[in-house]
């Protein structure tokens, strides 16, 4: 019987050494989306999936738009991306930062497939990166929070201490302090994008510490629900969370990916697609401020509306100095603007944030 065992091992060994490489075959224009969470998260993935559906409705049966959910970041993602590429998909969107390196590796192997990675920085001739300046609507939502906070203490449930999240916290805080210089923004890290239980726990801990508004950078509405249950207010993110949770959500900075997805998929289909780094703001429509709750007084809403118009008109640049760090030192002097690279790698908090970038 031992011989059988050895035989099995030898066959396996042989298979491992002499691996046949399957031929690729052509297929109609197929697009795959790789999601970190489920579309039902009503947040980050929900917005990407909403855009996916919108594009599908627009372009009809010329395209086939598929998705896979709950893909962990890291080596497993590489397998999934490769699988799609190998299965004849023409274009693949990876919608989380941790998919960047895996996608970069796979892109090298499949030069004819278009790869698009969201929120990273690496590009290749057939791999683009895309993101939006959500900091603009974040700043606007900060104005509302700054005006509405009575405790002058605002909580912020944040996923990971990475530049994307740090920027969100910073420009939200800048918005808050533009109308309420006494207010602070208190950050709690959850170290997860998608974990309803952890997100809720973090919000509750912040509420216990005396904050009266909860802002967030997560993938679900749990922090908003926790605030509502405590009779407190909140600022949503990703999707228009007021429609889901109720009017305790004062507003939400939201994504509108369909603007971008439609244009880049059409470019790829037409053969005009070129590698790029897409970073746009409210003007392009990829980001915007969601519905403002009736709980927000008219004068405050007016203030926000005015600021919003200025941003669209180009007369308000939220990235302009002076910007001070937590120690009060000026990092971006007045009259200058923080560069795109400095924003992309931002690893420090502005004045008014309570917490540490680990």
């Amino acid at each position, binding site marked *: 019987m031992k011989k059988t065992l050895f035989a099995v091992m030898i066959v396996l060994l042989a298979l491992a050494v002499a*691996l046949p*490489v399957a031929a690729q075959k052509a297929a109609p224009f197929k697009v795959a989306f790789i999601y970190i969470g489920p579309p039902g998260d009503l947040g980050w993935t929900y917005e990407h999936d909403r855009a996916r559906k919108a594009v599908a409705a627009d372009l009809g049966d010329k395209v086939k738009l598929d998705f896979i959910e709950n893909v962990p*970041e890291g*080596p497993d993602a590489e397998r999934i991306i490769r699988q799609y590429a190998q*299965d004849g998909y023409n274009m693949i969107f990876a919608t989380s930062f941790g998919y960047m390196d895996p996608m970069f590796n796979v892109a090298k192997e499949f030069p004819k497939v278009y790869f698009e990675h969201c929120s990273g920085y690496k590009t290749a001739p057939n791999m683009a990166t895309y993101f939006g300046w959500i900091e603009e609507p974040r700043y606007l939502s900060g104005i509302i929070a700054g005006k509405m906070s009575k405790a002058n203490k605002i909580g912020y449930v944040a996923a990971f201490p990475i530049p994307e999240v740090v920027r969100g916290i910073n420009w939200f805080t800048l918005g808050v302090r533009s109308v309420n210089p006494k207010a602070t923004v208190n950050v709690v890290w959850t170290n997860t994008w998608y974990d309803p239980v952890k997100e809720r726990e973090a919000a509750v801990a912040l509420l216990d510490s005396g904050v009266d508004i909860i802002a967030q950078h997560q993938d679900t509405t749990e922090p908003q629900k926790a605030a509502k249950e405590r009779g407190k207010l909140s600022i949503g993110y990703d999707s228009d969370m007021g429609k889901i949770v109720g009017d305790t959500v004062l507003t939400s900075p939201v994504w509108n990916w369909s603007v971008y997805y439609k244009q880049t998929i059409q470019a790829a289909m037409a053969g005009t697609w070129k590698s790029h780094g897409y970073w746009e703001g409210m003007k392009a429509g990829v980001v915007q401020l969601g519905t403002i709750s009736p709980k927000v007084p008219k004068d405050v809403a007016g203030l926000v509306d005015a600021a919003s118009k200025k941003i669209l008109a180009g007369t308000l640049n939220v990235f302009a100095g002076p910007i001070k760090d937590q120690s009060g030192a000026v990092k971006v002097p007045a009259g200058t603007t923080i560069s795109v690279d400095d924003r992309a790698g931002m690893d420090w908090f502005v004045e008014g944030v309570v917490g540490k970038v680990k």
Partner: protein
Amino acid sequence: MRLHFEKRKSLSIGALFLVPAISFLASLLLTGLLLVAFGADPMATYAAMLKGAFGSGRAFTETLVKAVPLMLTGLGVGLAFKLRFWNIGAEGQLVVAGVAASWVALFWNSWMPPFLLLPAALLVGCMAGALWAGIPALLKTSLKVDETLVTLMLNYVAILFAESLYYGPWRDPKGFGFPGSAPFPDSVLLPHIAGRAHIGLYFAIALALILWFLINRTRWGFELKIIGSSHKAARYQGISVERKILAAILLSGALCGLAGATEVTGISHRLQQGLSVGYGYTAIIVAWMSQLNPLAVVPVSILMAGLLVGGDQVQMKMGLPAAMSLVMQGMILFPMLAGSLFTEFRIRRAGKAAKDAQTMAPGGAA
């Protein structure tokens, strides 16, 4: 006809293979019912899974990529289980070893000749895994602290420790502040066989053979078997039980550690999120399915890896929710555990058993 159970006097290797195979089929049947309930075609789903895991060279390399850490941790966990040391800390040992190998890869290249860097990274990784397993082993052998809890808790310590490094001091200075260490130098990368499958596969297979030999053909293994059966009996035979357990658990940790070291040097090429995706826990299933036989660990790991890789297809091709592939993985365990009953016992018809027994040499009554 009446059936009854008989305890097997000696384990047949045929049963060793046949039983997991049959239980695997049974689990496919069970899951099939579930798939029908969800309105999916089970045969199409399985075909998609099979194709996704083994249907092409690329698919098979991806299965092997997942099988390597499962083999190594499966061997490590199985060795500990043989001693009835419930090491459920393979995950932590893997992560800590990944950290240690990364340490070598990132910081030793300034003074170490490049050709030594990879062996050093693997070796230091093994040592770190061994050390991490050594903590609960020492607590168990000297203070009789229950190892189950300690090994489990150390998993979280290891994962948080790794996180604190790649979010903190080890964060790539050129990485725009994103988490993850700098990429490793090329000299420390594990050579690949095909696709992403790396030579860790050869290590794993060689180690399975070595471990089998150690357990079944050496004094050391003989003593481990005695200890695994009864500490009292081992002590009576003059075996220094504590020392032997400690040594074996260090080896168990080193095996799990090698899994971590090969993952960072072979797959991720840097220390980052995603090093811990539950290999250490799946290893427990692998070890039991292999009935603690090191040789069986190799095919069983490939099977489990195939299930994990093929599971993607459930979503990608069949459009079923992601949870379905998890349910399928869970489903496989039940028949497998029931199957272990048949490796210990066999079913016979009542009359036949009696007749057989008469023809055998008279022994004592049970």
